[in-house]
């Protein structure tokens, strides 16, 4: 019976694991719903500020803002958005892969790289690989406020303003649907001119700025960068929860299958033991 006992212990352990993964799946499912709502709520602002910026790009301002001007790239900054916790499938790995590839590509072209990271996984990974982090943010929780993110955003925009970096890229996950998230690389600075031509009065026009072009555009562009990054972080959280839900569902299903297989093995072992016992008894009886 020794073998059957061993299998029984294994079944118990798999069942326990399944309880955990099942619980995590359900927690992730409920968090996912809220994370998706939050993502949807922050979208109108991001859309509208993009629209306004599209208008600004079509105006003919007397003042050219540095955030809008392309310049030769000697140093490039990355802002990496990852999750604080693991057990969410390939989500973080996909994002990190882009970072590594980009850093490798740029460095082989002789361009320096500066990185800031949001989320434990990204910070830990970059540290282990000896990268210099110019800013980091961990422990953002499930309900990040814009105020939490201002630190790293400031560091990167200031670096751009001071000419320490000539472009800023955002690396994060795009939420496509619950089953599918895609790691993406997006240029934040200099602000890309949108392609589509919308509204707009007349041929050559410019805004009336109150009080002046510079502070107003400064304000607008700072808000734009904040909005893009905030949106990315909120979206990444929605990605994280759905990736975790899917990963945990797979784990639970696997555990269920495993328990079934082990149960079969257990039954066989038990039957074999009984058969053997009977054979021994009858053999003993025959001998008497």
């Amino acid at each position, binding site marked *: 019976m020794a073998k059957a006992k061993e299998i029984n212990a294994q079944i118990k352990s798999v069942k326990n694991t399944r309880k955990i993964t099942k619980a995590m799946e359900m927690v992730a499912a409920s968090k996912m719903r809220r994370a998706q709502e939050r993502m949807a*709520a*922050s979208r*109108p*602002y991001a859309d*509208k*500020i993009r*629209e*306004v910026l599209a*208008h*600004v790009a079509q*105006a003919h301002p007397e003042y050219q803002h540095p955030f809008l001007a392309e310049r030769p790239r000697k140093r490039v900054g990355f802002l990496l958005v990852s999750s604080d916790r693991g057990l969410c499938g390939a989500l973080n790995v996909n994002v990190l892969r882009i970072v590594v590839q980009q850093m490798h590509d740029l460095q082989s072209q002789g361009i320096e790289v500066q990185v800031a990271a949001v989320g434990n996984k990204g910070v830990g990974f970059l540290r282990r690989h000896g990268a210099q982090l110019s800013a980091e943010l961990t422990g953002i929780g499930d309900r990040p406020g*814009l105020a939490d993110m201002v630190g790293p955003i400031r560091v990167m925009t200031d670096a751009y303003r001071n000419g320490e970096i000539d472009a800023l890229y955002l690396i994060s996950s795009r939420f496509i649907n619950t089953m599918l998230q895609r790691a993406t690389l997006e240029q934040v600075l200099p602000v890309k001119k949108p392609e589509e031509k919308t*509204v*707009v*009065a007349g041929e050559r*026009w*410019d*805004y*009336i*700025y*109150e*009080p002046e072009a510079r*502070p*107003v*555009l400064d*304000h*607008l562009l700072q*808000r734009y960068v904040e*909005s893009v990054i*905030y949106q990315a972080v909120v979206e990444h959280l929605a990605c994280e929860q759905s990736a975790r839900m899917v990963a945990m569902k797979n784990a639970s299903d696997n555990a269920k299958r495993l328990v079934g297989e082990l149960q079969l093995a257990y039954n066989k072992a038990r039957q074999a033991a009984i058969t053997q016992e009977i054979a021994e008894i009858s053999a003993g009886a025959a001998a008497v």
Partner: protein
Amino acid sequence: MGMTIDVRVVSAEGSIYEGTADMVIAPGQMGELGILPRHAPLLTGLRPGELRIKHGAETEYLFVNGGILEIQPDVVTVLADSAERATDIDEAKAKAAKEAAEVRIANQADELDYAAAQAELLEQVARLRTLQRLREQGILR
């Protein structure tokens, strides 16, 4: 049929208002702005204050806590740092926050905190003033 202008008010937390109006009155950085249809393109910052959206006989009162205002001839976009419907203002909360800010200013802990407290105070005062104006006009209680 008179002309109208599209109005969209959004904050980072969501869309607050979307509709058409005959006139919009906004708390611009350089003073109150009255916006009618076919206004010249304009870009300005907002200070904390009340945003009025007039449509026919009705007026919608919103409270915006800073942000950016963009005017195109046929559309007004308010990118508020935060915004709420004036009738949703929590008076007790605003008063408490105002007093807390006053205490912080009186103590003058450090410069950074002082600036933050001052901004907070400005916001709460504007919020309470909005509420008071609504009362005077008999829209609220």
